[in-house]
């Protein structure tokens, strides 16, 4: 596509075609009738690249600036769908959670992150899951029906479900 653009670019810088009406010719470019609509100016491609780059930088910036804001985060623990406990991530502590049919796991909160470090469920997948520290992340233990979720406010739903424009 780049090649094609390069080849057809000079065509578009031709002056206005003769016979264009009284309303035209504001800008020094006219559409060549036999010219593919998909091939743009080189500037268009550069602009698109710049915008994509800006979006990437913005995304990275968001991801990094996110790290410092763990003060108001909570680890909300659910057992069998019901809220069991809600702990601020800012305080280091351990809690044993009694889950379904006598199984339990140990939730460990250290340096702003929650992790399941011990469990007596059969598959122990919850122990293998990574520690969680940003809003919306979860650790799930299916056999014991325990879910640990990081929330912005203790047990509260997000403030905005949706808004329309």
């Amino acid at each position, binding site marked *: 596509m780049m090649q094609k653009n390069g080849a057809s670019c000079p065509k*578009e*810088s031709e002056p206005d075609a003769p016979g*264009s*009406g*009284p*309303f*035209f010719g*504001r*800008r*020094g*470019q*006219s*559409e060549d*009738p036999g010219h593919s*609509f*998909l091939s*743009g*100016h*080189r*500037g*268009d491609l*550069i*602009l*698109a690249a710049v*915008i*994509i780059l*800006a*979006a*990437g930088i*913005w*995304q990275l910036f*968001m991801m990094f600036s996110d790290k410092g804001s763990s003060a108001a985060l909570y680890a909300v623990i659910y057992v069998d769908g019901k809220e069991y406990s809600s702990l601020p991530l800012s305080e280091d502590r351990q809690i044993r959670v009694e889950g379904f049919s006598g199984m339990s796991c140990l939730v460990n909160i250290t340096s702003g992150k929650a992790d399941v470090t011990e469990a007596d469920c059969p598959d122990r997948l919850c122990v293998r899951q990574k520690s969680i520290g940003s809003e919306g992340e979860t650790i799930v233990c299916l056999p014991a029906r325990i879910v640990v979720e990081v929330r912005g406010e203790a047990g509260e739903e997000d*403030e*905005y479900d*949706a*808004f*329309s*424009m």
Partner: protein
Amino acid sequence: MISDYSAKTRKTAVLGMFLALALIMGYIESLLPPLSGIPGVKLGLSNIVTLITMEVFGKKEALVVLLLRIVLSGLLFGNMFSMVFSLSGGLLAFAAMGAGSMFKALSITGVSMLGGVFHNIGQLIAAAIVVDELKIAYYGPVLLISGLLTGFVTGLIAKIVLSYIRKAL
């Protein structure tokens, strides 16, 4: 030979038609299913008319059509709230497109991409003010990319339409 008077009448009529077209475009778009679950991501079909007006008549005329379109569609289909949102997006997009159209290196597609991106930035700013929450900036990257894509599509449509109506007008 077109006299001054009939050229003026013709211009008024065509601009009125463009305004009607822009309103219809906005209405048709409201009938389409939303492109995604993300608020603010939309095609921006009425921007096709803004682009064409800018190409055919100039920036001043395009701004008049844009402002009238936003006010009228706000009164007809929306409310004050939606009017403020489209105004913030529309004006910022218009400023970006006006500036972009002065660069010869950009075709109408590039100008439209600028418009799409800045429309979304304008709406993001308005949303951040309305909900008083800077966290909304999380939408930024998504809105930049979606503005780029929708701007590309509408710019392409405008390019194709222009190639036909240049002969007709």
